[in-house]
């Protein structure tokens, strides 16, 4: 007891007495000085802090990760082939197209808006690709560009209608769903189905291109190293600025964890065909989008508009620009998804982008943790959500159950995800983490 106070300090409160407190504060990082801040100590403390966050509704992607594990355990018990390398390689390839569309859905959901027309737009894009490349004989890059451009223009149109007339995005894109389905059929013409030559590189890319084993491992290691370097640089800069920084051991642990999380699946996929180029493209899109959302001013303004439009507007954010850019990106991602799907099918037909494409893309974003209320979610929601949906689909196919059951189960999972979203939102509000 070093406090030179005359009043007897309460037991166990030796470092809260005023004179020592000031001494203590000087040595503590600027962001840790409030004595009410609960600081985790050691691994046990970190785990407890995590548990506390979960109970207060700040659950992030935890439910979907747990859900994914449950789904995988159940299906592998029902059919051991489910977790075979061959099946998982197929699973990754099935994820890529709809997953790409889902990245765009995450963006509009972040604004608290919706795009119901992504299926039709992806179908239209596939049709434009096939017709211009096969029937009109355009060079493939030009055809691809035309498809993407169509998506971009459609998104701009949505954004214009939304910002100019204030029509709810639900209605605009519902009209788009019908209108662009019609356009798709018109573009395809009387044949209704066009095959894309098997030797064109878009089909090769979607069906045949896999990373060589060594390249997949190099990419895994480079990713983990980049992650570690970025954590390390941030920690140094924070320490230099007098703020609390992540300790070096924690950086090492996190990076090794990432190395394992990426390396083990890569190794397992490499047992058969390996990591598909199309799946890699999807992963890269997710990571790049995550970077833009979390690190740039544009991303910050997307979250701000989703959280409180009026506040965003008053702080000088170009709200119209944010809406335009997001609707445009969403439709462009839809068009890209349509291109990937056409490549994988080596054809575009009247069913392209139809069926469950639309609903799967939207469901994936929501299941992955993008909130329907806006302002919450991440690019990784698309990845996690589409993994869940395609796992269910693949597992049920292996069990020879037909699509009727698949729709019902996917519907139930979606409902569950929305309930989890609403519940966690309510808990967050009551725990002050909304």
């Amino acid at each position, binding site marked *: 007891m070093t406090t030179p106070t005359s009043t007897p300090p309460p037991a166990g409160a030796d470092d809260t007495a005023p004179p020592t407190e000031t001494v203590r504060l000087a040595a503590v990082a600027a962001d840790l000085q409030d004595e009410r801040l609960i600081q985790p100590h050691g691994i046990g403390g970190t785990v407890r802090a995590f548990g506390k966050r979960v109970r207060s509704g700040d659950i992030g992607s935890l439910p979907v990760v747990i859900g994914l594990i449950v789904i995988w355990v159940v299906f592998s018990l029902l059919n051991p082939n489910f977790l075979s390398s061959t099946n998982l390689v197929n699973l990754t390839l099935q994820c890529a197209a709809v997953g790409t569309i889902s990245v765009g859905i995450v963006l509009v959901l972040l604004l608290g808006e919706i795009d119901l027309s992504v299926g039709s737009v992806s179908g239209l894009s596939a049709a434009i690709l096939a017709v211009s490349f096969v029937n009109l004989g355009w060079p493939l890059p030009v055809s691809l560009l035309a498809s993407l451009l169509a998506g971009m223009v459609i998104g701009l149109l949505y954004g214009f209608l939304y910002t100019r007339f204030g029509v709810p995005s639900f209605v605009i894109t519902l009209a788009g769903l019908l209108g662009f389905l019609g356009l798709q059929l018109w573009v395809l013409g009387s044949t209704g189905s066009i095959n894309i030559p098997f030797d064109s590189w878009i089909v090769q890319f979607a069906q045949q291109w896999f990373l060589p084993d060594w390249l997949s491992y190099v990419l895994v290691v480079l990713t983990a190293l980049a992650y570690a370097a970025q954590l390390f640089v941030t920690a140094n800069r924070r320490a230099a600025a007098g703020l609390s920084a992540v300790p070096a051991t924690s950086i090492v642990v996190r990076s090794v964890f990432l190395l394992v999380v990426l390396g083990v699946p890569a190794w397992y996929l490499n047992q058969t065909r390996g990591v598909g180029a199309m799946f890699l493209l999807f992963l890269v899109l997710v990571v790049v989008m995550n970077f833009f959302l979390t690190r740039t001013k544009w991303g910050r303004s997307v979250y*701000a508009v989703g959280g409180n439009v009026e506040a965003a507007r008053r702080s000088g954010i170009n709200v119209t620009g944010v809406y335009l850019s997001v609707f445009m990106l969403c439709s462009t991602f839809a068009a890209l998804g349509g291109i990937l799907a056409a490549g994988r099918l080596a054809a575009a037909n009247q069913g392209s982008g139809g069926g469950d494409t639309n609903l799967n893309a939207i469901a994936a974003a929501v299941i992955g943790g993008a909130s329907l209320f806006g302002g919450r979610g991440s690019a990784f929601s698309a990845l996690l959500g589409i993994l869940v949906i395609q796992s269910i689909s693949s597992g049920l196919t292996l069990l020879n159950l037909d699509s009727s059951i698949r729709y019902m189960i996917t519907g139930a999972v979606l409902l569950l995800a929305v309930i989890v979203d609403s519940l966690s939102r309510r808990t967050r509000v009551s725990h002050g983490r909304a």
Partner: protein
Amino acid sequence: MAVTSTPEAPVGDLVLSLRGIDKNFGAVQALTDIDLDIYSGEVVALVGDNGAGKSTLIKILAGVHPQDGGTISHDGKTVSINNPADSNNLGIATVYQDLALCDNLDVVANLFLGHELGRATINEVEMEKRSWGLLRQLSARIPSVRIPVASLSGGQRQTVAIARSLIGEPRIVILDEPTAALGVAQTAEVLNLIERLRERGLAVVLISHNMADVQAVADRIVVLRLGRNNGEFKVADVSYEDIIAAITGASDNAVTRRAQARVDSADATAAAATATDTELPKEERP
């Protein structure tokens, strides 16, 4: 109502001058022919009853909605403020009555919203460092700047909103009821801050219903009543009663009646105490 006493020429320059401002919302004429001068190095208090049009007037300056009539001149040049960015470019920073924070973003993100530091990517470290500096200057009691503002108390949120107005070197700071939700210490800190802003030569517009705060820091008081100018006073030579009279539009108003009632009952109690029988004073009331 003619309690107008022309204020002496203030020390600073005339930075912002409003003439004949009109604003209506559909059938409601919220502002009619409002004049307001804002000088650097001076705190002007804008007072008036609920619905007098104070928030509407400052929202015109903040670019939230444009005026329907009248002119605004800045440093002698006529300007039009069509959006919040225009207002920002004129060096006007506003703390809104409804705070205008994004609940899903953390404190740092809210403080720098629309003005993030860094070029290609956001410089979070520098932003967090400056946030702590700013919050400490306001004696803010905020445990962490990395939690969503939704989890802060009303007063903490208000402190964040005030701190936000100080980012980006404003020339004019407008505060719409900044101390309404603050604790005693934080209120004092905001009043200190207002005085510091004045010393630094900034122009401050303060809206408050708390006459003690107004009299403590303001140099000049502008009264609005039912959307019109209703008097302008130098704080040094106006009494509390005069201000209240200008706000309510009559020397006989609810405030004076309450005060009178208190005096009466005190007299009555005194009378009752001196009387031989100790009857309750209420019996002596009419």
